[in-house]
Every structure is written in structure tokens, then in C-alpha cells.
């Protein structure tokens, strides 16, 4: 098959996949008797038409950056981590345990501690599937799916039987101490000139940006990153070069789980300020779409996370202002994963004749 030039591979293929996903989403909207144009207007104005909309879009994008990076890191070692959802849930538990343990005086102290708790719990949840994959050959896709369900059951148990304050009926933890409150965009000097209304986007956004840079440094500027990528390209070649497969699998999955867990500082610490049931709300799964769309590069993940934040906030607005159910965003998410992840060969096959024709014309 004709090999596409790098720019087509990196930019053209994802963009065409996205257009295809958009086209089929429009068909779905038409099929349920609504107007795609009207839907698009609501999505656009709701998500990026105001600072308030941006405050939500960037809030969602922050979560998706963490889970997208988690999937990305694992993908580079040829590990498909579908367990981001469970790892993010456990990260939430880590955050809650840390924040409820002490009367935190100030968020600058609470944030690093909560980050450590989130990453530790997320990583621990990824550790068992990783260990089973590395030493017992159990397929990590299946084990991480199982661990998502185990995590959900475990969290229900923790919330109902352990963390629920005495006398409360709701399966939620107690509210975190005042001092653990993370500044939202409307409370940060400078930014509060733009974000005048209360928005959920908070300082975690900057932590997520830093995480993008750190993951890039890790993967392409360190020895460990080289080993991860070499292992992902060819396990046998990596073994032959003296790379320890068990060690790389474990480290990669621990980093991946830690990143997914860190998402909890955005939603649990930054937004709800107590641990709710199903706090991750599917963001762990969206990480898969974000990583695929972003072509497993931190910069791509950043852009894809903002795109999905846009879709998520826009989808919520649709549910609010039109008779199109909010579930449309799950359909769009599925279509994006389908076209960018599973049918990208189709797009390549469609493009190949064009480039072949051009090459022949040049030659």
C-alpha cells in the first residue's frame, strides 16, 4: 500500500476521520428529527461562545488531558489501558482519604498531598493488571475492564459503609475542609477579569498542562521513555536489547494509572469538593478517544482534550436547551473512536490513490 507522507498521517487522517464522525453524527441528529445546524449553533455558543462556556469546556478538558495521557503512555508500550475509569475512581478515593485526614490550612499544601494520594491510588489500581500481564500473560484489556467494575463496586462499598458521615442518607463522603478549596478560574487574580461568573475550571488545568510537558519529556527525552517506546515497537527486540519486559510493563502501567488517578484533583478536589458515586463520569473512557484522536502525542492529546471538552460542554447545553438528549455526546464520542481508531485504515485507503496519482505526476 502507498505510504502517506508524514503530514498527511499526522494531520489529514485525523481531520478526515473527525469530519466523517461529524457527518454521521449529523445524520443521527437528522434521523431523530432535529436540525444538525441548530444543534451545532447550541453546541458552539454553549461551549465556546462565552467565558462561562469556556470555564466548563476547559474543566472537562483538564480531566480528559489526564486520562488521555494515561492511555497515551500505555499505548507507547503497546498496552491498551481501558482501566482509566476505574483508576480515576480510585484516584478520587485517594484524594478523599488525604483531604479528610487533616484539617488542611491552605490549598498549596493540600494540592501536592492530594496529587500524591490520587496518583498512588490510581497507580495501585493499575498495578495488579500490569503485574498479571507481565508475569502471567493475562490480557490487560480484559483485566482492566474487570477492574473498572471491581472499582465501581468497591467505591459503592466505601461510600455507603465507610466514608458516609453518620446520619447522612446520600452515599457521598463528608465535605472536604475549607482550606483544601482549589481556586477556580474566577478566583485567580488576572483570570477573574475574563471569568466573571463561577466556573468549575480550576488550577488543576495548569497541572494538566505541566503533565503534558512532562509526559513528552518522559517519552522522548529520557532513557526510560526510549525503553517504553522500544518495548512497544517490538517486545522481542527490546528483550534482546536487554530491556526487562516485566519492569517496563509495570512502570508504564503505574505511570498510566497514576495519571488517570490524578484526574481526581480536577473533579473531586476542584469541583465537587467531596467524593461522589461515579465521580469520573466516563472521563476514563474518553481518554481512549482523546489518545487516539491526538495520535498518542501530548500536544495532540492537549488539542483533542479541548475538542472533547467542547463536545462535552456543548452536549450538556444540548440536553439543557433543546429536545436532543444529552446522550448524543456518547454517540459522537463512539463515532470519533470508531473512525479515528478502528477505521483509520479505511481513510488511508481512500487517500492512498490521491497521493499515488500526485507522486506519479511529479515523477
Amino acid at each position, binding site marked *: 500500500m502507498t505510504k502517506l507522507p508524514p503530514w498527511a498521517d499526522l494531520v489529514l487522517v485525523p481531520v478526515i476521520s473527525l469530519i466523517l464522525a461529524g457527518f454521521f453524527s449529523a445524520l443521527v441528529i437528522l434521523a431523530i428529527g432535529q436540525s444538525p445546524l441548530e444543534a451545532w449553533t447550541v453546541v458552539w455558543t454553549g461551549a465556546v461562545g462565552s467565558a462561562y462556556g469556556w470555564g466548563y469546556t476547559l474543566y472537562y478538558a483538564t480531566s480528559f488531558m489526564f486520562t488521555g495521557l494515561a492511555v497515551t503512555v500505555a499505548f507507547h508500550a503497546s498496552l491498551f489501558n481501558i482501566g482509566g475509569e476505574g483508576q480515576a475512581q480510585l484516584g478520587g478515593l485517594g484524594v478523599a482519604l488525604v483531604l479528610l485526614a487533616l484539617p488542611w490550612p491552605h490549598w498549596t499544601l493540600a494540592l501536592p498531598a492530594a496529587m500524591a494520594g490520587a496518583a498512588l491510588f490510581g497507580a495501585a489500581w493499575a498495578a495488579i493488571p500490569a503485574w498479571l500481564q507481565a508475569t502471567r500473560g493475562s490480557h490487560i484489556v*480484559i483485566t482492566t475492564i474487570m477492574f473498572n467494575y471491581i472499582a465501581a463496586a*468497591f467505591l459503592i462499598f466505601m461510600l455507603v459503609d465507610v466514608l458516609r458521615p453518620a446520619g447522612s442518607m446520600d452515599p457521598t463522603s463528608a465535605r472536604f475542609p475549607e482550606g483544601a478549596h482549589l481556586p477556580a478560574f474566577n478566583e485567580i487574580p488576572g483570570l477573574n477579569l475574563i471569568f466573571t461568573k463561577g466556573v468549575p475550571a480550576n488550577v488543576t488545568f495548569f497541572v494538566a498542562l505541566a503533565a503534558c510537558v512532562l509526559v513528552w519529556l518522559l517519552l522522548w527525552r529520557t532513557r526510560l521513555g526510549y525503553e517504553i517506546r522500544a518495548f512497544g515497537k517490538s517486545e522481542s527486540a527490546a528483550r534482546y536489547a536487554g530491556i526487562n519486559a516485566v519492569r517496563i510493563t509495570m512502570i508504564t502501567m503505574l505511570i498510566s494509572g497514576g495519571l488517570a488517578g490524578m484526574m481526581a484533583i480536577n473533579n473531586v478536589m476542584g469541583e465537587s469538593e467531596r467524593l461522589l458515586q461515579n465521580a469520573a463520569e466516563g472521563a476514563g473512557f474518553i481518554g481512549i478517544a482523546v489518545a487516539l484522536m491526538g495520535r498518542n502525542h501530548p500536544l495532540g492529546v492537549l488539542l483533542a482534550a479541548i475538542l472533547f471538552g467542547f463536545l462535552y460542554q456543548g452536549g450538556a447545553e444540548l440536553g439543557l436547551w433543546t429536545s436532543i438528549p444529552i446522550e448524543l455526546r456518547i454517540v459522537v464520542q463512539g463515532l470519533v473512536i470508531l473512525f479515528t481508531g478502528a477505521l483509520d485504515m479505511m481513510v488511508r485507503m481512500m487517500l492512498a490513490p490521491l497521493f499515488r496519482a500526485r507522486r506519479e505526476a511529479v515523477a
Partner: protein
Amino acid sequence: MDYGTLLQILDSTLRLATPLLLACLAGLFSERSGIFDIGLEGKMLAAAMSAGTVAFLTGSVWIGLLAGIGASIIFAAIHGVASITFRGNQLISGVALNFVASGITVLIAQTLFGQGGRTPPLEGAARFNAITLPFAEALKDVPVIGPLYHEVISGHGAMVYAALLCVPLTWWVLFRTRFGLRLRAVGENPESVDTAGISVVRLRYTAVIITGILCGMAGAYLSTGLQAGFGKEMTAGRGYIALAALIFAKWRPWHALYACLLFGFLQALALRPDVIGGLAGFKVPVPLLDALPYILTVIVLAGFVGKAIPPRAGGEPYVKER
């Protein structure tokens, strides 16, 4: 726990095991042919919505069943196109289709009925109603066996018996027919099948469509048999439990039956916390029971209960040599 309670639990075990069994056998065909399918969940959900909707509109459960199978086959065909024709990543395709199904079922049900993504309740001929097996009434008073026959074995909808019949049928197709031999071969070593002049693509498409039919039956049973109507996300992870059962059964039909009965039993127990509390002598948290099928699967996957080795060519797209 008295005999009557045991019978009640066994009765719901059989009902809860049915969708698992159908989906598990569905996965068996696909995976034996070398196509991983984590989209069982989505296919079941699409079928449940479609069957519930059509059964309500036509008042016939059988037309509903056909509609359910049709919806499931559409999803199966997309998975086939992505993973066979375009050699895409089968896991990603499965994940994607699960999302599409999860959203689109609510979208359609909400548009048609406007009841928050549910279909209206089904009744009468729009559901699978209980079939009383011969002599069930007559044998009712025979000690021990009589109530067992009357309560547990008799009195289910047609789909429960169909699912049970699918087990020997699957075994026969897989191990006693030429098609089955080829199907198993294409999942282990597609090159050899190709060398013998048999189309790998065609075999795999056939397997994927059979998966669609069985998932369609599983989904239709959920909305027209187990419950009376479709509800949002009503599969509740059953597609993944079926996948777990498939691994537990090491891709063998009879073992699939045992695994699904076991997981069905666990689900039936989870509905009766009073019984477990009485048996264990302390309060067993219900979430633990919910998680048990998944925990068991992980233990099996870890190879502590014999090693589960999937079909060798599973997940690998086949590229014909030129």
C-alpha cells in the same frame, strides 16, 4: 436456607444466566474465528432497545425478537467491516461500538416515546411468557424432584430453553461439522485455511454475523423476557460478564454453560442479601457480590485455576499473501 428459598434462587439463576449464556456463545463464535469482540455489550443493548420498541409497536414479541436480531447484526457487521475488511484494531472497534450503542439507544427511545429513554411497559403477547412444561402440574407434589421440576425447570419463557438448546447446538457445529473445523482453524492459523483454498474473510464474516444473531437474542430477552421493556443501560455490564464467562470457560461451549450458570447464580444471590447474611452469619456487602464475577475472572485470567489460552490468531487482522 430452606428448600423453597433455594428453589427460588435457582429459578432466578436460570433466568439471569440466559442472557449471559447467549452472549457468551455469541462471543465464542467470534473469538474462535479470531475476531475479538468486546462489543457484546453494545450489541445486546441495541437489540434490547430495538426488540422492546418493535414488540411494543406491533404487540408481537416474535417480531420484536427479529428486530432485535436485526439491530445486533448491523452492529456486528460494522465490527466485521472495521476488523476484517479494514484490518482495524478489534478492541478499539468494540469499545467504539459500545459507546455508539449506549448513546443511540437512549436517543431513539427518547425520540419515539419521550419517557426518559425507556420504552413503554410491555404486556401480553409483546413479552416472552412462561411456558409450563408437560406434567409440571401433575408432578408438583412429588417430594424433592416435583417442586424442582415445577419451580425451577418449568415455567420460563421460550428464550431460556432456546439458550439452553444453543449449547449442544454450538458444540455440534463447532466440533462435528466441517464449518466448525474451519472456524476453529481460522482462529488458530488462518494461513493454513487460506492455503487450503477456503476464504478467511468469508469464514470470519460468517462467525461475526452468528455473533450478531446470538447477541440479538440475548438483548431481546432482556427487554421482552427478563424485564418488561427497555431501560437505559439495561445490559448493566452483562456483555462483559459474558466475556468473562467465555474466558472462564476457556472458549468451550459446555463450560460456557457452567460458567454462565455460576455467574447467574452469583447475580441471583446478590438480589437476596437476606439469604447470604443468614448463611454467612455476618452482613456480606452487596457490592462484593456484584464484583464477584469480575474478581473470579481475574483469578482465572491469572492462571491460578488452569491457564486460559485464547485462540492463537485472535485479534490479528489477516493479510492475504500476494
